[in-house]
């Protein structure tokens, strides 16, 4: 049975909004020209490829359903599991189901902790036990290297095929749009494919990136964390944008007491330590949710609402930067002569704000949105580390890093969970930052159209 979590609704609404914006940009030269300029930068194209890979995983993870339980004899209605799964879970069923007992190193065949094992002769000994799933197909552990190599090669072969197909597609695209640096896209796709191919080939029979404390596959956790990061990075802007745009342009346009009031609000808000404010809000929210457990029928729903409330809290505490930028720009714009000409026509203030001010600050909004994204992704990690982030049952890079606090102090050290979270997040934030740079350059008003 398809099941919509509240955040799914918002995510798909955002997708629709972005599609509508794209269509709108396509029609208006003042918007399509800067975007075309963005995609003339090789770094932007490459990072867009990486971001779309993340996005694809995140979107797959946003199609939820509740699996049907095996029909009980005599039951007329179909019963559904209380567990909410996504399309991504379905695709990664192999990874999800194969939990070990506890830690195991990447590609290991044996556990990371010694256990009491029963030898074939009936004797007991303390040894590293074989994993239940990782490398279980191996009759002889001596074949490990050969098996891994075989799988890596198979992965490469599949990747090479996919790459060739993609190169064909690029050739067609290049003819239609010769100004876009397609080679950068090709390289980025190549790197992604040659990483993903072996990864999936290995992950069917090994724990490619090891397992965590309770034996879950770290690779699976990392993939599941992507959605959380994306939701935090994008849904937050849904809250942030209306507040920031509304208050910022109003302060700059009306001035006088409106400006004073809005400035006082955001200076006050800015002078409270951000983490403290968020922590207080999140803790209050937790209490409310726990008191009213009856609001939520499923655990997944509760975790999801917590995620959304976190987005809202982040949004309400981080609009000040955008508002300040927009106030300054609006102050400048409202002195311009076309605004005065509109006044001379007796155009209403609301119309002037919507038709003259807003389109002319849109580049700042776009730049701020893209630049904020990486900041928000990192903020989530910090907050979850402090313990005021997402629900513990929600997979996120923050919770992975939080868990790694204990693992790093272990002897021998468990490094893979932290390293995985670090690598996945680095790739996401780096791509987002590179893309943001290109967007800023593309929308720079000093570059004349």
């Amino acid at each position, binding site marked *: 049975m398809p099941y919509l979590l509240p955040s799914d609704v918002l995510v798909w609404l955002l997708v629709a909004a972005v599609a509508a914006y794209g269509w709108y940009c396509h029609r208006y*030269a*003042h918007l399509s020209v800067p975007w075309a300029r963005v995609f003339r930068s090789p770094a932007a194209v490459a990072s867009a490829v990486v971001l779309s890979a993340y996005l694809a995983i995140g979107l797959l993870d946003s199609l939820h359903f509740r699996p049907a339980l095996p029909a009980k004899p005599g039951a007329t209605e179909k019963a559904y599991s209380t567990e909410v799964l996504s399309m991504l879970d379905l695709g990664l069923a192999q990874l999800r189901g194969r939990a070990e007992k506890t830690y195991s190193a990447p590609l290991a065949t044996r556990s990371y902790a010694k256990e009491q094992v029963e030898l074939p002769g009936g004797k007991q000994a303390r040894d590293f036990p074989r994993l239940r799933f990782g490398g279980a197909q191996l009759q002889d552990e001596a074949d490990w290297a050969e098996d891994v190599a075989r799988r890596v090669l198979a992965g490469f072969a599949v990747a090479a095929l996919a790459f060739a197909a993609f190169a064909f597609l690029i050739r067609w695209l290049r003819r239609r749009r010769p100004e876009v640096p397609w080679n950068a896209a090709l390289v980025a796709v190549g790197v992604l494919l040659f990483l993903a191919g072996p990864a999936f080939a290995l992950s069917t029979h090994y724990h490619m990136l090891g397992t965590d404390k309770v034996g879950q596959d770290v690779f699976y956790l990392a993939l599941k964390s992507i959605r959380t990061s994306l939701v935090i990075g994008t849904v937050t802007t849904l809250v942030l944008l209306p507040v920031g745009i509304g208050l910022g342009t109003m302060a700059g346009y009306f001035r006088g007491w409106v400006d004073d009031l809005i400035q006082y609000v955001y200076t006050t808000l800015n002078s409270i330590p951000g983490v403290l404010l968020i922590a207080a809000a999140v803790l209050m929210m937790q209490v409310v949710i726990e008191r009213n457990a009856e609001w939520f029928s499923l655990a997944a729903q509760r975790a999801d609402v917590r995620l959304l409330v976190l987005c809202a809290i982040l949004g309400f505490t981080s609009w000040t930067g955008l508002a300040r930028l927009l106030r300054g720009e609006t102050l400048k714009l409202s002195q*311009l002569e076309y605004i005065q*000409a*509109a006044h001379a*026509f*007796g155009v*209403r203030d609301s119309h002037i704000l919507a038709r003259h001010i807003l389109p002319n600050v849109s580049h700042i909004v776009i730049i701020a949105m893209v630049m904020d994204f990486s900041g928000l992704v990192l903020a989530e990690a910090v907050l979850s580390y402090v313990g005021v982030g997402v629900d513990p049952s929600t997979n996120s890079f923050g919770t992975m890093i939080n868990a790694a606090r204990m693992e790093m102090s272990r002897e021998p050290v468990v490094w893979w969970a932290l390293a995985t979270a670090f690598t996945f997040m680095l790739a996401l934030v780096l791509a987002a930052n590179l893309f943001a740079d290109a967007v800023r350059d593309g929308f720079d008003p000093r570059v004349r159209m």
Partner: protein
Amino acid sequence: MIESVLQVSGLKTSLDTPRGELRAVDGVDIELRKGECFALVGESGSGKSMTALSLMRLLPETGRIADGRVLLRGPDLLAGQDLLALPEAAMRAVRGRRVAMIFQEPATALNPVLTVGRQVTEVLERHTQLAGEAVRKRALELLDAVGIPDAGRRCEEYPFQLSGGLKQRVMIACALAAEPEILIADEPTTALDVTIQAQILDLLAKLQAEREMAILLITHDLGIVARMAQRVAVMYAGEIVEVAERDAFFAAPQHPYAQKLFEALPAPQKRGAELSVIAGQVPPLTAPFAGCRFVERCDLAFKRCHEELPRLIAIPADVMAGRLVRCHLREQGPAPAPRHVPPMATEGTVIAAERSPAIVSVESLKVHFPIRKGVFKRTVGQVRAVDGVSLTIRQGRTLALVGESGCGKTTAGKALLRLILPTEGRVVFAGRDLSSLSRRALRESRGAMQIIFQDPYASLNPRMRTADILAEGMRSLGVGRDEKDRARRMAQLLAQVGLPLEALQRYPHEFSGGQRQRIAIARALAVEPKLIVCDEPTSALDVSVQAQILNLLKSLQERLGIAYLFITHNISIVEYLAHEVAVMYLGRIVEHGAADEVLANPKHPYTEALLSAVPAVPAAPGVDGQREIIRLSGELPSPAQPPPGCHFHPRCPKAMSECAQAYPAAVALERGRTVSCVLYRASKAASSS
């Protein structure tokens, strides 16, 4: 033979642009002689500034010098030294030491975090042997020499504490510090007011004479050329098209482009007639040329002009030495001197003016901006931007409001439209006082009064298409029955301002400056106004484009009977276009009357000084166009603390002790003329007794 100090030959400079290589300077030859002022004239985009920057090797990053030689000669270097071949380190010793440059915008050319004295001593330390106390002494001397009053105190001040004129003087002091042989002045007075401009031009002329310095003066203003230069070169599309001695040039310009430039200048004798315009635009400099660069815009072009590149030739049978022209026509001999139209009779303007009904009358309009300080924003003073202005604007007439920047003319125009809320006074329109109207009632009368702004790049929303721009006012004020009706009106408007119909679907950035100004005019016309406030509508445009816009405004007035309040500092436009003129000084009107009378016979000492400061193009050969210049000392005082008594008395050459006591009341003279000056009250009292 006069010694040449700088010889430029075959200079070619190109800029890399997204549309390809732009040949901004394409084979320029200049010879600069010792102690002369050589003017390089041209419209924007002609490559005159690029030439100057190439000489200094200060090109922007995308620019490079493709070819040519710049020979700098000096007493020790008779053969000359090619500046383009010097290594950068040696070039740094030339810049400032041998060749100095001053720029257009004094506000950005000085470092805001260094004191004025420091900026001068920096140059001295770099280029002279002086050190320690001697440097400081020399800096003081220099600041004194460029006419900075109280140089000792000014030395310790920062650029923001100085006015524009003083900053330009500091720039000149910096440029002169190392006693260069050559001074390149790139539009040195464009950012300044006329009275300040006169001061700076005088200073440059004086320094040139004292130091035998050669000046390469780059300007677009033929009036400045007439006042300053000994020789003139006209640039067009990257090439020099004419070189001549000043007097010969103004007597009979030889190149069709130069001739056209003169014809496009507004002047009193052209009143009533259309200004001649140069059709079309400067050709793009990215494509190679097969023929003359001016051919598309030239009325005299013939077949050969399209096919053969003209060379810079000396005119046969021309007695005037050193005269070069780039035109095939001149191979047959020099062009005749232009016909000089005698000034048209302008009698009866006042009578006609009194007959036409008043549209708007402004009564003692005041706009005061409070100066607030402290936590509670207490008002500690008032900036009296407009301080009691009374005007009457009549149907179908043009009233020019003239004054220097900061005198409050723009504020007065905007307060009239209620774009700025007036502090006091009445604006009576159609029998109703606008200041008493509610917001809603005001909206209804908005359509009758419109405004055209100075900068056509800032006055159109870059995110809106022309159609939306034109429709905005109509929608807001309910002009036109429905969208279809409005679309029909828009087509009509475009035809009126001379733009093609497809302009509707385009964005402002696709138009040139003149076309944008046409859109702005169409936008104002869309709501059928009776009065248009024109706030310096041509000051950002080139002379040839200015002529088009002035013609358009004039023909619209004749056809539609619109009244204009024309705010400007350009006296020649006033002479050409205005019926009446009001001169403003520090928030008040000092003189008001029929345009021809006020301009021909100014009564108020300020009007006299203002008119004399305007560098004029000689109206007829032999006649020196320059009025005797009345030099005003100092600058416009702050409107926050106007001087007691007559605001003008601290600068007035005719000031008396009486002037400091009370502001003189307006005295009505004959034919509706008023003057606010003690001189006339005195004479009236004397005649009556």
